[in-house]
């Protein structure tokens, strides 16, 4: 019987050609001979299998890397264009969206509106409950904002507690209605973790005009927002060109104030605080005035806000404290020796939080030889909201040294009674809005009586502000209010005028 022709080498050659042409799945079955040719066949099969597997691995790795690259790209885009905390657009993306909407407007669409929001009271939340709660609050605010806009609008967080919205294809009425809805929605308490927080938003609205760039639009919305913030908190303001002029004048005013502090353009006026039972002047409140070279005498309301916004308030407060303490030392060394008398000085919370504030106050007193018991530091209720660890430690240090702390404008803030329960107060100054009409309006009388009872219940002293009539003074005295301050006893006076008054008062009421 003839042996069949051995064509394994031909088949092997075909296999190699198939493999070389890219068919890595090609294989050849070896013969049962298991000789050298079969060994080569098996070797080629195994090499082909190896090659196929390596190719597969490589392809899988390329696919995996491509997915990773796409994810990294997306992540990078998110980092570059979105706020990591809230997931909202960031300033860059907001600018892009505004530019896009402006480009549409150039082609005939309605120009967009930009809403800029700043939360009122956010700092107090951060200071009181800590940053994690503040962050939860921002996330919740972001969520609420997103719910209130359309898909086509953009909500962005610009940083801190500042948010912005770009509203497209909407009329002025629609935009204002949206702003109002947002304002109302943000007033509802926010549950941030275990804390319930109340904030409100000041909203600036700017309607774009064709040709305007994103930066100007944002600046104008910001100006309107500041106007809202400076008015009633939690309000909406639409940008008007005169606001820009106001903002500009504030910048100029800040520059002037910087010079004024250095050049002694500031003055301190003093307003008497009177014991309602004895009629004696038992103290004065130091009130800063600015003798502006062009605008004349300016009251604090006209420049303290600017000072607080620009950080000049620290220098301002320190100047007032030094001047008032030096004045008190002069009075104490003469006709006020041995008299019950205290100097009330207003302090900004910003200053209260600066390191070594308490030491600075005590050094100032020591330098002028004034005992700490002669000084009362006044701070407004809303300012005390942010009772962070630094503030509380400064207050404790001051009170331990003997300096009294007064809450100013009591009755105008948020949770007034809560503050009275804390242990860092000595004096409560009741706001003039609660005193006005006390002698004619029974309702006002009942409110004043209730507040005085509460102040008394916490063992604190009350000073009624804005007392204008003898009748009001008498009613307050009858309600147990110990001290009063107001036009009834005199306007704030320059040092010379107040000195003359105090000389008479001291002579009439020896210690």
């Amino acid at each position, binding site marked *: 019987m003839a042996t069949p022709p051995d064509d394994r080498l031909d088949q092997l050659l075909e296999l190699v050609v198939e493999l070389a042409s890219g068919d890595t799945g090609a294989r050849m079955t*070896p013969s049962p001979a*298991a000789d050298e040719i*079969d060994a080569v066949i*098996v*070797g080629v099969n195994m090499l082909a*299998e190896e090659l196929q597997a390596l190719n597969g691995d490589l392809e899988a790795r390329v696919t995996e890397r491509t997915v990773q690259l796409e994810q990294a790209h997306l992540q990078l885009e998110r980092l570059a264009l979105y706020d990591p905390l809230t997931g909202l657009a960031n300033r860059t993306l907001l600018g892009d969206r505004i530019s896009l909407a402006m480009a549409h407007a150039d082609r005939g669409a309605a120009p967009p509106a930009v809403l800029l929001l700043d939360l009122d009271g956010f700092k107090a939340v951060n200071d009181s409950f800590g940053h994690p709660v503040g962050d939860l609050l921002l996330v919740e605010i972001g969520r609420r904002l997103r719910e209130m806009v359309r898909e086509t609008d953009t909500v962005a967080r610009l940083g801190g507690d500042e948010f912005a919205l770009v509203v497209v294809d909407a009329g002025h009425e629609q935009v204002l209605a949206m702003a109002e809805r947002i304002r109302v929605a943000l007033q509802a308490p926010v549950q941030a973790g275990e804390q319930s927080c109340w904030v409100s938003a000041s909203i600036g609205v700017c309607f774009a005009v064709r040709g305007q760039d994103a930066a100007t639009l944002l600046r104008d919305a910001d100006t309107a927002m500041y106007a809202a913030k400076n008015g009633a908190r939690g309000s909406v303001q639409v940008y008007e060109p005169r606001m820009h002029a106001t903002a500009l004048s504030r910048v100029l005013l800040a520059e002037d104030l910087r010079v004024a502090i250095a050049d002694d353009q500031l003055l301190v006026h003093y307003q008497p605080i009177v014991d309602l039972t004895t009629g004696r002047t038992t103290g004065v409140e130091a009130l800063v005035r600015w003798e502006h070279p062009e605008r004349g005498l300016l009251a604090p309301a006209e420049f303290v806000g600017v000072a607080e916004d620009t950080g000049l308030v620290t220098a301002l407060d320190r100047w007032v404290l030094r001047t008032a303490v030096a004045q008190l030392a002069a009075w104490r060394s003469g006709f006020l020796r041995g008299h019950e008398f205290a100097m009330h000085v207003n302090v900004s919370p910003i200053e209260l939080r600066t390191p070594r504030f308490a030491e600075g106050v005590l050094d100032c007193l020591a330098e002028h030889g004034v005992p700490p018991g002669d000084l009362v530091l006044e701070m407004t209720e809303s300012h005390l909201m942010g009772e962070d660890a630094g503030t509380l430690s400064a207050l404790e240090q001051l009170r331990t040294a003997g300096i009294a702390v007064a809450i100013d404008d009591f009755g105008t803030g948020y949770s007034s009674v809560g503050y009275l329960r804390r242990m860092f107060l000595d004096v409560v100054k009741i706001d003039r809005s609660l005193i006005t009409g006390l002698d004619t309006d029974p309702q006002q009388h009942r409110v004043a009586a209730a507040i005085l009872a509460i102040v008394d219940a916490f063992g604190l002293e009350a000073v009624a502000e804005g007392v204008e009539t003898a009748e009001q003074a008498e009613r307050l005295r009858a309600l147990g209010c110990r001290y009063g301050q107001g036009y009834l006893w005199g306007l704030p006076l320059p040092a010379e005028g107040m000195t003359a008054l105090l000389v008479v008062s001291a002579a009439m009421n020896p210690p």
Partner: protein
Amino acid sequence: MSEAVNGPPEPDRLMEVRLDPLGIVRLTWSPGLQITDTLARRAMELVDLTNTDRERPLLVDMTGTAALTRGARMTFTRRCSASRIALLGRSPVDRVIANFALGVSSTPVPTRFFTSELAAVAWLRHGDPA
């Protein structure tokens, strides 16, 4: 004395694992077999079962094996209870397959290919001559 460990049928019919009187574990594959990942894993289990808690040299008789898949070769790179491994074959095909197992993947213990059982047993018992 020699004891054989036989698992349930399929795939255990395709291999035999036993301990010989010299203390060498012998794994013998059925001729003409394509050794896959599954078979390789089962073989390692049986070797481990035979060795219980100690390590012993392993003689793998792979004479006449038709093929050894890549998955099976990867399985053999994992450490088992063999202290050293001698691969025993006869034909040039056995040699190629064995050398793929040795060369392409790194083996966890000393492993060599032999065509003589005597030489393989000697190497397993005494190692390389000094």
